[in-house]
């Protein structure tokens, strides 16, 4: 086994120990619910920002009370690879531009369920790789399937905003339930350490 593979294996195991708490999945579910509200009524646009903040800030906050008392605390080394940072920013900008183009043009509005289904499926597949949790792969497949079904509805004339927001709301529900199940499994598998955790 190469050095990189060995340290990669150890790092992956260490990261997954913490990431398997299901909190990021719940955070994603909350974001999807908020996005569903925004797509249903664009006047609630400001709420999307809260959804993003919730997804970013909620898991680390809850980890202090749920995860760290059970499996311990670790701060991982931040690999600030400039290429990875630039690529991530480029991907986010591209997604936002596509979202705007599809959403603002009635001619392409019917693509929105398919676009969002694929986008969030890719995201949750990446989350599944990080956590090693099979349930996230299943969620990814559900996202793809729902995106395709939504596309069928919009292609045959159903109102895109209503179909997309309904689809996102259902996916939000499924994601929050799946994330909560992950968290409960994690808590059962890793009982809280009572008292001093030091040697």
């Amino acid at each position, binding site marked *: 086994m190469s050095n990189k593979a060995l340290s990669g294996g150890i790092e992956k195991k260490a990261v997954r120990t913490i990431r398997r708490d299901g909190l990021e999945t719940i955070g994603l579910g909350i974001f999807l619910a908020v996005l569903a509200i925004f797509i249903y009524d664009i006047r609630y646009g400001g709420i999307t920002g809260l959804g993003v903040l919730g997804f970013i800030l909620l898991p680390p906050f809850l980890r202090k009370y749920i995860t760290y008392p059970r499996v311990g*605390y670790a701060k991982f080394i931040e690999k600030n690879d400039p290429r990875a940072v630039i690529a991530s920013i480029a991907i986010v900008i591209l997604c936002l531009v596509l979202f705007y183009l599809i959403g603002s043009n009635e001619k392409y509005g019917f693509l929105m369920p398919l676009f969002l289904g694929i986008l969030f499926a890719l995201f949750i597949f990446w989350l599944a790789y990080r956590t090693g949790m099979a349930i996230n792969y299943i969620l990814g497949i559900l996202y793809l399937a729902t995106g395709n079904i939504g596309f069928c509805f919009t292609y045959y004339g159903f109102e895109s905003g209503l179909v997309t927001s309904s689809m996102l709301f259902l996916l939000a529900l499924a994601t929050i339930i799946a994330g909560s199940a992950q968290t409960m499994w994690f808590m059962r598998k890793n009982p809280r350490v009572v008292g001093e955790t030091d040697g």
Partner: protein
Amino acid sequence: MDEIRENDNLRQLAEIDRIIHEPARLLIMAYLFVVESADFLFLERQTGLTRGNLSSHLTKLEDAGYVEIKKEFVEKIPRTLLSLTKSGRQAFNAYRKNMKHVLDELPG
């Protein structure tokens, strides 16, 4: 020439860091290598070592200057934060290079 090469290989074997070479300590160093810092519970769970065993090995690593141990209170609960020192990271990298060379020279 062959004799010189043979001596070099033997010297490499002799230069292996015995502090790190012990299996439990190697595991501890490996986990600390991939984090900026971690607490005692995390290391205990990852390595599977008992509390006493882990404590004993950490003391040896701290005495060697490879590990820094900081005790702090987080919401009235004591927490021991562990991290590799700069010399600890250098020592681990040197150990890794050394072992790779030694293993590459083994027959089979």
